[in-house]
């Protein structure tokens, strides 16, 4: 019985804060102290605006680029860390952990002037570059744990049997580390998708992603628009995590990624 009450409390605590958000997204008139709004499609209709559609495109472009680049860099570093025992390996691991912990804002304030100097501010490329700071270390750590349980002798066996480098990669290495690659790419995508302050600092408001739009609409106090917009921002992460939940739960290195979101 007590267990049931605890489970009920847990479900309410997790889900109840979403209720006002959902109500506001479809709210027309919602004056204090009304408990329920009059229904209106105004907030949701705003999602068809050109500004929102273009922000969706920019967000998808940036987050996908960050996911691909961070996963590639992370897979290479993870291979070195997971397969080889070399001098300085521990130091490299600690170095990779630092950006996971130290606030990225501090670092970005310091390099912003260089991004201005080299013409990277106000560009998508600059935003992608700065978002590699929080994502590459994480992807490297995930891939290191993925490669640690990979047996490189299997690659040698493939070579002996006459498989070239590309075929070995495709038929031997990739299938073995695929779950790691998926997790690294997923989290890099999600970290980038939610990022606000780095995008603002380097994108300068010219590169308009969805979180920038959300901050602007919260600031303008149009709560129906902000709530509708936040549904658009929340839906892809929820879907992606829902679809990949099976790979995530048991794996500790993977789960840690949630700490950066």
């Amino acid at each position, binding site marked *: 019985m007590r267990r049931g009450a605890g489970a009920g409390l*847990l479900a309410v605590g997790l889900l109840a804060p979403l209720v006002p958000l959902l109500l506001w997204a479809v709210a027309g008139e919602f004056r204090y102290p009304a408990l329920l709004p009059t229904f209106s499609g105004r907030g949701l209709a705003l999602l068809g605006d050109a500004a929102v559609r273009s922000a969706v495109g920019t967000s998808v472009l940036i987050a996908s680029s960050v996911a691909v680049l961070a996963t590639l860099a992370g897979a290479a570093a993870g291979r070195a860390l997971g397969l080889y025992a070399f001098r300085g390996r521990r130091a490299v691991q600690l170095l990779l952990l630092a950006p996971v912990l130290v606030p990225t804002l501090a670092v970005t304030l*310091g390099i912003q002037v260089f991004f201005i100097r080299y013409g990277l501010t106000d560009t998508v490329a600059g935003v992608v*570059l700065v978002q590699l700071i929080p994502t590459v270390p994480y992807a490297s750590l995930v891939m290191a744990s993925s490669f640690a349980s990979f047996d490189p002798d299997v690659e040698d066996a493939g070579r002996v049997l006459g498989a070239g480098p590309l075929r070995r990669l495709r038929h031997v290495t990739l299938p073995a580390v695929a779950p790691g690659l998926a997790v690294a790419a997923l989290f890099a995508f999600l970290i980038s998708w939610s990022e606000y302050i780095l995008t603002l600092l380097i994108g300068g408001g010219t590169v308009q992603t969805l979180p920038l739009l959300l901050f602007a609409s919260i600031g303008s106090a149009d709560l129906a628009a902000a709530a509708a917009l*936040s549904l658009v921002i929340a839906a892809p992460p929820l879907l992606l995590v829902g679809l990949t939940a099976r790979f995530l739960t048991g794996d500790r290195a993977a789960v840690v990624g949630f*700490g950066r979101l």
Partner: protein
Amino acid sequence: MSTVPRGLRITLLLAPALLVVVGLFGGGLAQAVAQSLGYQPFLPGRELSLDAYRALWADPAVRASIGITLRVALISTAAAAVLGTAAALLVRSLGRHRRRFAALLQVTLPLPHAVAALAMILLLGQSGALSRVAAALGLVEDPSGFPALTQDGFGWGIIASYVWKEAPFVAVVVLAALSSGVAELEDAARALGANAAQRMRHVLAPVLAPAVAAASVLVFAFTLGSYEVPFLLGRPFPATLPVVAYQQFRDPDLSARPLAMAIAVVTALLVGACVVAYLSLSERLRR
């Protein structure tokens, strides 16, 4: 195995990641320190000084900011650790509904913090959902009668938003740690006659503690150094350190730059000090 020598091979594999971590991250950190001392890249040289740190220490606004930053981070982390561990143990004991609740824990995890902050504004704000429920029950008459839980001086709204996101994070990390054969160990202990308290102390706690501690360090570092939630749910004064650092950075007067950098450096040092303390403590406990 291939014609590329081993050392070069490792170097090449590590190069892209190290370029980001050493070049962008390390370079940015070094630049933040240098600029906090008065150095300005691409501008004529100025004398280096600790003026910004003196100004920082003398500024009551910054001191208030250190207070609210540490308070919010500590309370959020402690609450997330306790509630998250409790939730994990509860979910583990649920038997056939276990899977469904484990999935439920993952609902808030992928939500962007800005969305969580907006949810808290709509839930806890003075004209938010809780206030309306209180009005329906006749407890308050108008929004001003409801306690200010968002944009408040203490930081309750910020804490609520962090706990809502981070307690499930702790729970998921703990569940991952508990999934690795702990149930079998507990069964063995039970078979050997250990009671519930003994099983908790000798079987569960040694598995739980490192997982909870590691998750807490991540939560603490995040809540101390992130910008979005305190910007949306806090006051402009006293604001948390990252918010003040950005306010100063945006100042069109470039002479505010060293102060902005100094605040950013202090924030990074606070996080670093806490992580080092954690690592040395966990090292000592392991012996």
